[in-house]
């Protein structure tokens, strides 16, 4: 006796698919007709009319064939698909706008010049964003150096030591992630800049960014460390290792790629932060390699200055800056994803 072919009788049959397609076509036609007749106008009018008519027709059809529960399911299905469409549309609009408007301002030159001799309203051949890129890199690096140890130590407390204060500390980390970026900026302003250094500098900005970064790194690291199976720790201790040696030589290396992911996510979180930089860094126009003295430019500040200058060239500069920033965020996002997937495989 030969084995029959596997089938999936529950997938919609050809007739069902054709009927559904027909309903869509009819709704489209009716939508156009309705819009022509009524005073509604614009692309949105067509979309809404199509949507409402499609729901109406397919629901009535479903209701007649199988009953009210299936009809309700149908309405819900259309609604959630619409919600997803609404959620996704801005992404495409944003990406399209940034690329189309920003590309006009991109030339090889802008990566080699800074704004020390130009103003945002000058034509695009003068000035550039070199200082912004080096500034952002400097700020991020300083913030990373400060936030990674604290973030990982916090995560270690929550997973390895698990003392009495675990729940309050976890709550505090969560609370800290909700601190608005401008409050972090004001804090550094009042606690460090005014009393101690009395001048704008990149380091001040990095301090504020650190506050914003720590929760992201701590939370992601905690998740990653929790995934390390306990057998590893037990094996280390059974061999006579102290706790810190077990953690340093076994647990952390095992969690290595996850911790790098945490760092990348932390960087992505702060790369585009503007408000604290506006308060603390002074927005310099020249490349400044010293984070401790002198105003420091950055991509967000550059974008902000250009946008506020208002002229068409300035606005193009702003879009170009946004494009560069977006590319940076994109690269960080993709690398984090790749790391996570490589770990699973």
């Amino acid at each position, binding site marked *: 006796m030969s084995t029959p072919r596997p089938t999936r009788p529950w997938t919609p049959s050809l007739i069902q698919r054709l009927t559904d397609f027909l309903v869509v076509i009819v709704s489209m036609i009716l939508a156009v007709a309705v819009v022509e007749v009524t005073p509604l106008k614009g692309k949105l009018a067509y979309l809404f009319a199509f949507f409402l008519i499609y729901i109406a027709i397919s629901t009535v059809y479903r209701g007649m064939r199988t009953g009210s529960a299936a009809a309700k399911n149908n309405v819900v299905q259309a609604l959630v698909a619409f919600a997803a469409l609404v*959620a996704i549309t801005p992404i495409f609009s944003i990406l399209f706008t940034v690329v189309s408007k920003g590309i006009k301002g991109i030339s090889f030159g802008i990566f080699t010049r800074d704004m020390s001799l130009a103003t945002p309203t000058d034509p695009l051949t003068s000035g550039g964003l070199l200082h912004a890129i080096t500034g952002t890199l400097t700020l991020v690096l300083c913030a990373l150096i400060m936030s990674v140890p604290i973030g990982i130590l916090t995560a270690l407390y929550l997973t390895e030591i698990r003392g009495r204060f675990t729940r309050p500390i976890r709550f505090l980390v969560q609370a800290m992630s909700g601190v608005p970026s401008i409050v972090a900026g004001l804090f550094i302003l009042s*606690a460090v800049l005014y009393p101690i250094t009395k001048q704008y500098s990149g380091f001040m900005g990095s301090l504020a960014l650190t506050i914003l970064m720590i929760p992201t790194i701590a939370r992601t690291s905690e998740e990653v460390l929790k995934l390390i199976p306990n057998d590893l720790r037990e094996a280390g201790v059974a061999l006579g290792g*102290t*706790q810190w040696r077990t953690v340093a030589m076994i647990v952390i290396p095992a969690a290595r790629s996850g911790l790098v992911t945490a760092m990348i996510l932390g960087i992505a979180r702060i790369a585009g932060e503007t408000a604290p930089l506006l308060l603390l860094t002074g927005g310099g126009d020249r490349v400044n390699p010293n984070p401790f003295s002198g105003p420091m430019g950055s991509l967000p500040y550059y974008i902000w200055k250009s946008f506020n200058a208002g002229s068409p060239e300035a606005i193009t500069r702003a879009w170009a800056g946004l494009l560069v920033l977006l590319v940076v965020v994109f690269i*960080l996002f993709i690398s984090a994803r790749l790391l996570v997937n490589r770990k699973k495989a």
Partner: protein
Amino acid sequence: MSASIPQPRLITTQPRKSDRVFRGIVTAGGFSSLLILGLIAIFLGFRGFEVIRTEGFRFITSSDWSISTDDAGNVLESHFGLAAMLVGTILCALTAVVIAVPISIGTSLFLNFYAPNFLKRILTTLIDLMAAFPSILFGIWGFLVLMPSAEYWAKLIHKYFGFIPLFEIKPYVVTRSPFVAGVVLAIMIIPIITSISREIYSQAPLDRIQAAYALGATKWAMIRAVVLPHGRNGVVGGAMLGLGRAMGETVAVFTVLNIVFQINWHILLGAGGNVASLIILKFGDASPYEIRALMAAGLVLFVLTLIVNALADFIVRHTSKSGR
């Protein structure tokens, strides 16, 4: 004579010195968040205290924000009131949440239960990517690209629902209203709430989902019976997280909103502001005394967002216990 049950032995371990140092360092690191949050409250309070003491309760209830100084820089007269900005903060953030939450819930239900697999993966990646976009991008895009459309919708709402006081526009200034800011903020927080909701709905217990189907439920009936009740607390927590984010947003609101020092409850009228954008606006040429006022404003915002986040955490914490 029966033998009595012995007492359990007390086992003590003295950790090695290196381990005690290790525990000390790690614990110190763990306490850093407490330290930082405490310092924020202390410093902002310290700096802003004088202003709060002078203004008293008016700091929160009046909407005057003005300061006049003489040539030497001494303060002649000052009034600092956050009321207009607080109302604006709440209005914009609430508008954002009201718009964002239904869309986020719908999207996460679509992704988890209605979308084919390949679409789910693509859309999830896109939405997570959008969560990483910098806020200044939303601000500039919102101002240059979204605003005309948003104003069109505002005009539509005013045309059909203008009789409701919330939607009145007097005088007729329809540009750069809290509504527009709310829409931009909504687009910013949709990815966050969608992500959280998606996580929560995907953990709905499979055996109960199967039980619902076995009783003859349609997909929507199953979602209503099993998924939504199970995820309710978590999603509320996520919504509050989005609310907190919207309340503290600076640049995106600043570019889009017309900052006017007057309490404005009409979301379609082009006037308002939020505390964060006030700080940015005034910081540029603020005298030292005014800066203290801004610090005080920052403290108010800090406390506000802390409360919202604490509430969100509390609500989400209660899910894992009773949602089972």
